[in-house]
């Protein structure tokens, strides 16, 4: 855990605590000051800057799109009242950038540091393919009109004197969706963004924030709206105690029922296996999974040639939400998981009304003083299949589908199954994906997970 995660969680806990105590409207404007009182240590340039960013952090926690702020003098209590009066579901993209929090990191380049000893051999100068290095006053210098940032000098220097400055958000983003705007602060281009959440985790200033529905959910509970929680399989191992105890705690926190998304994953498996056979028999060369929403968004925006290869099988979340609705027609459905892209998928899907992250769930339990130890086990109707719970791990989906194929579809013997997996989306695996799109990579079943390791390593998981 780092300082940014800690602050995020502290704020969430405080908001839940004050909401539950019925005093949030009165405390919310004070929270930035209470957390950064005078004479206390601060993290940015000064106390006041910290407080200003805390205000934006709370706005994002209230679901605001920070880019839309048009009145800087508007107090948090006014934003809170809007959130309290609003519907459960919120519109628009799940990520937002606090420009006041962005440090405007200087553009990435290769720099010579004071470690340079102006040595005799000058490997940097000799390794540079562009002749960009000269030596002046016993120090190497880079001519940035010539430098192509290849980094060879960096590797050649025996003193580690040459280094590369990075813009963490930009280098984390696999699709070039985050850039500086004309004011020098980061801005997300949502025509490119796939909501993978990598910038969110990478920014050391924590300027990239998720737009939360936490307060909307709290308010719906208070209004007496029935809410069913559907919990992603990656919840296993995220909290101390058993799944059954976790589910009891979730129920105690205010949900009328708690169900496993893995039950939906069972349906996804059966459906996807059938679809795969149909597609193969129809002569389609490749089918890919569809359960990772960041991957689906990636294909839509960056690899359209793969669009018709994505399975049309609904995701486990959608199947589970349908089960929840069938069981509780009068309730709203809240998906609980480690994922930012699911917020986007849920906003587009009719089945799910709100999304909550594991961090937010943890804060809900903490803020309501609900402990996991000592919880009675929740009476699961039946535990979901092991293979379905394994969806949360890389290779889990393909293993489940493969298993299903072997078990239930005998005509499978007629063609060769060739499973490939992409474990984590980055600039390199994106190139592999494009090869698949062009039919230049092996495999007829492709599993893609945006997070390396699978959902268990999601951007909003508690234990990484």
């Amino acid at each position, binding site marked *: *855990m780092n300082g940014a995660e*800690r602050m995020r*969680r*502290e704020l969430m*806990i405080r908001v839940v605590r004050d909401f539950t105590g019925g005093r949030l409207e009165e405390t919310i404007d004070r929270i930035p000051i209470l957390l950064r009182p005078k004479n206390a240590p601060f993290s940015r340039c000064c106390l006041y800057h910290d407080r200003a960013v805390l205000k934006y952090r709370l706005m994002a926690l209230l679901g605001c799109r920070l880019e839309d702020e048009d009145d800087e003098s508007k107090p948090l209590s006014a934003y809170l009242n809007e959130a309290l009066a609003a519907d459960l579901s919120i519109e628009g993209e799940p990520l937002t950038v606090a420009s006041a929090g962005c440090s405007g990191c200087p553009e990435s380049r290769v720099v010579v540091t004071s470690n340079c000893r102006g040595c005799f051999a000058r490997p940097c100068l000799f390794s540079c393919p562009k002749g960009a290095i000269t030596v002046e006053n016993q120090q190497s210098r880079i001519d940035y009109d010539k430098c192509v940032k290849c980094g060879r000098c960096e590797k050649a220097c025996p003193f580690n004197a040459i280094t590369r400055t990075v813009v963490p958000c930009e280098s984390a983003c696999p699709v070039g969706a985050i850039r500086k705007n004309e004011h020098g602060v980061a801005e997300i281009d949502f025509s490119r963004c796939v909501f993978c959440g990598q910038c969110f985790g990478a920014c050391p200033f924590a300027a990239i924030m998720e737009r939360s529905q936490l307060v909307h959910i709290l308010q719906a509970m208070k209004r007496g709206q029935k809410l069913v929680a559907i919990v992603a399989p990656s919840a296993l191992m995220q*909290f*101390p105690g058993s799944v059954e105890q976790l589910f009891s705690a979730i129920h105690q926190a205010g949900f009328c029922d708690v169900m496993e998304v893995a039950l939906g994953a069972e349906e996804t498996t059966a459906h996807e296996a059938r679809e795969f056979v149909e597609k193969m028999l129809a002569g389609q060369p490749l089918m890919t999974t569809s359960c990772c929403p960041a991957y689906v968004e990636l294909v839509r925006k960056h690899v359209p040639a793969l669009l018709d290869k994505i399975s049309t099988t609904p995701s486990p979340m959608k199947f589970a939400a349908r089960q929840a609705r069938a069981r509780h027609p009068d309730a709203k459905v809240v998906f609980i998981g480690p994922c930012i892209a699911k917020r986007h998928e849920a906003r587009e899907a009719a089945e799910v009304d709100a999304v909550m992250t594991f*961090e937010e769930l*943890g*804060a809900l*339990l*903490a803020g309501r*003083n*609900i*402990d*996991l*130890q*000592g919880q009675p086990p929740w009476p699961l109707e039946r535990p979901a299949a092991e293979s379905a719970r394994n969806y949360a791990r890389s290779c889990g989906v393909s293993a489940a589908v493969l298993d299903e194929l072997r078990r239930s579809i005998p005509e499978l013997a007629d063609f060769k199954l060739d499973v490939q997996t992409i474990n984590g989306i980055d600039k390199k695996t994106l190139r592999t994906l494009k090869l698949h799109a062009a039919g230049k990579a092996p495999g007829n079943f492709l599993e893609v997970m945006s997070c390396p390791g699978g959902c268990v390593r999601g951007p909003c998981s*508690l*234990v990484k």
Partner: protein
Amino acid sequence: MCADKIKIDICCGTTCYLLGAADLVQLEAKLPDEWKDKVEIAAVPCLEACTTDKLGQAPFVRVNGELIPRASAEAICECLFELISGQTRGGAR
């Protein structure tokens, strides 16, 4: 034997868990080998230190009854060192 062991209670109440205790669960692995049979590590329910601002910040750990706020593996080791060797690290204070 057991009575002589140093008791380390890691609070696994939800607040502490969320604010860092999740990372302390592997504390045992971080201890020097020669300390391992001298301590008894337990994950305990909420120590009720999180309900007031007065005792410092979560995560809380109790070592032989002494409460360590904002506990880290390093802070716990420091405390163990004092108990085991009877002195503070880096000489007497």
